């Protein structure tokens, strides 16, 4: 098999980039194919002999495979280091944890910044439009390549939660359990609207160059930063923003101009500028599009429960946050009702927090307790 893996020093951490041969292209929902396909991934812990302890982590819009260890690009801790790690709900001592970078991403998996084999140049807008189902199919290919038949759990928040639902719909026989945090079964008009603002900001940047900025040696940093600023507001709740910043000023007195007078402005600007250092603008366009196209019910005759008809053996845990207005609790309830209607074994809890959508990254005691309880009992049922 044409594969390259590397094992990082430290024993329990591994990963690399899986390069699928040309005869194993990714067949996309749009009808197009993507080849060659590369999937970047990280692993934590060891696969047990029976291969029953594998957990797949699915990341959110701007996440990556560095879920449980320091991100080499930013130097910051893994994005889910509150959940993955020794003594945490997903302990590498017990589980073999796999985190991938989604197809269309910019952290090593094939995406719009990858080289188009037809031109020898970065794909840019020649990259095919991808969907959540395509991301999941690429993950399934990796899981199979790693010799894993059944995942103990597939876990994800936000867009990761949508991948979890897609996994349950497309590969129920490969799942023992599924954990979907702060997600929705479809993108609402408001979700699409916010994404459109972000995309328009990127495309309005003169340095975007019709998507061909990479080969022209520029980057649409301003547009991407604005996209991130707009999106970031949707990840926080109004009370959290108010508590954190209120009307506090950066300096004494107003500037009587358009500098970042307010702390919240300065914070958002920082979010924007630090984001462009680690993310590709075209990836942002493609991944937001994949989210907008996501409608699990529509793939199943308009009936969400139909999506889960074959997933009755999967143990589901659906979690939402009370102050999340991006994917509000009502959306998670729709998922749970569909699971109930399909006769699936499902747990659901709404976690009380005022931290908004981003609460799933944060140290939330109730999230921690819930995940611990669910994984502990599910592991027992799996004989782990």
């Amino acid at each position, binding site marked *: 098999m044409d594969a390259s893996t590397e094992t990082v020093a430290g024993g329990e951490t591994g990963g690399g980039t899986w390069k699928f041969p040309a005869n194993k292209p990714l067949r996309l929902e749009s009808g197009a194919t993507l080849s060659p396909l590369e999937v970047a991934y990280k692993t934590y812990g060891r696969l047990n002999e029976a291969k029953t302890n594998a957990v797949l982590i699915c990341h959110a819009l701007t996440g990556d495979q560095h879920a449980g260890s320091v991100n080499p690009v930013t130097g910051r801790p893994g994005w889910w280091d509150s959940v993955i790690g020794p003594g945490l709900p997903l302990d590498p001592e017990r589980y073999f944890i796999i985190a991938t970078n989604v197809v269309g991403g910019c952290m090593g998996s094939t995406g719009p910044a990858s080289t188009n084999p037809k031109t020898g140049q970065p794909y840019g807008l020649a990259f095919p439009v991808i969907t959540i189902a395509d991301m999941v199919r690429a993950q399934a290919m990796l899981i199979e390549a790693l010799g894993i038949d059944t995942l103990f759990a597939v876990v994800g928040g936000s867009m990761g939660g949508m991948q979890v639902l897609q996994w349950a719909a497309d590969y129920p026989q490969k799942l023992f359990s599924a954990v979907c945090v702060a997600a929705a079964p479809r993108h609402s008009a408001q979700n699409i609207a916010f994404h459109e603002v972000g995309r328009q900001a990127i495309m309005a940047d003169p340095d975007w160059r019709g998507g061909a900025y990479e080969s022209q040696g520029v980057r649409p940093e301003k547009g991407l930063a604005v996209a991130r600023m707009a999106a970031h507001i949707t990840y926080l709740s109004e009370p959290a923003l108010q508590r954190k910043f209120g009307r506090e000023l950066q300096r004494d007195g107003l500037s009587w101009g358009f500098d970042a007078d307010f702390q919240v402005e300065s914070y958002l600007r920082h979010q924007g500028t630090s984001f462009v250092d680690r993310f590709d603008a075209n990836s942002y366009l493609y991944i937001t599009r994949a989210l907008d196209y996501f409608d699990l019910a529509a793939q199943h005759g308009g009936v969400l429960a139909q999506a889960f008809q074959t997933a009755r053996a999967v*143990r589901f*845990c659906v979690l939402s946050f009370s102050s999340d207005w991006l994917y509000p609790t009502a959306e998670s*309830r729709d998922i*749970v*009702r569909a699971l*109930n*209607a*399909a*006769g699936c*074994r*499902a*747990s*659901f*809890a*709404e*976690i*009380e927090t005022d931290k908004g959508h981003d609460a799933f990254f944060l140290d939330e005691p*109730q999230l921690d*307790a*819930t995940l*611990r*309880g*669910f994984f*502990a*009992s*599910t592991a*027992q*049922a799996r004989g782990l």
Partner: protein
Amino acid sequence: MSARREDFAEILRLVRPGARVLDVGCEDGELLELLTREKQVDGQGLEISPAGVAACLAKGLAVVQGDGDRDLDHFPTRAFDYAILSKTLQQMREPRHVLSELLRIADQAIVSVPNFGHWRMRVSLMARGRMPETRALPDPWWSTPNIHLCTLRDFTDLCRELDLRVDACAALSGGKSARPIQPDGLLENWRSETALFLLSRRPEARPEATPQNLFGEVELPKPDAPAPVRRRRTKA
């Protein structure tokens, strides 16, 4: 953990091993855990309070945070063998709808209701002229969650109206062991503090099967489903 509630022992006795059980208003999952351990049931809880849901999840129970008044509608028909509603029917906004839903979702419902016809209630109301506050219903009228109280007789009337069959009934009073009763018995509406019913939907063609022996034990064999074995207990 709270003291085992008096109706739990009786519910535990009624439920068939390995059955699929929905516990509506499962609180911290004590009953479901008991049923899982003792009867190996495939259990699912429905609970409104976040603390209750968290406690259930920590016990490894499948639980959905939701409202018995609203969320039963979303469960498929005959998804469970038993739907349990322990002492909360009188707290529902629409008890009639809830009862009907329980017996759509499950083949049998186990429902316990405090009897407002109990002599303590009657005496309290007669003597004091005030809303009774008893050990079964301890809250003052202005803070009670019990908004739809009924007597035993009211409850059996509703069962008849909904075409439900009483497969078993037991009276529970203050920690004593359950006493099998004939719910339409004249005295039972005076002396039963709480009644626990095992109900099923009456098949259309079935002839009148309401127990006739007024003071005897309910003897209703179920031809189409393995009935829980009921044995006369020695009086405590």
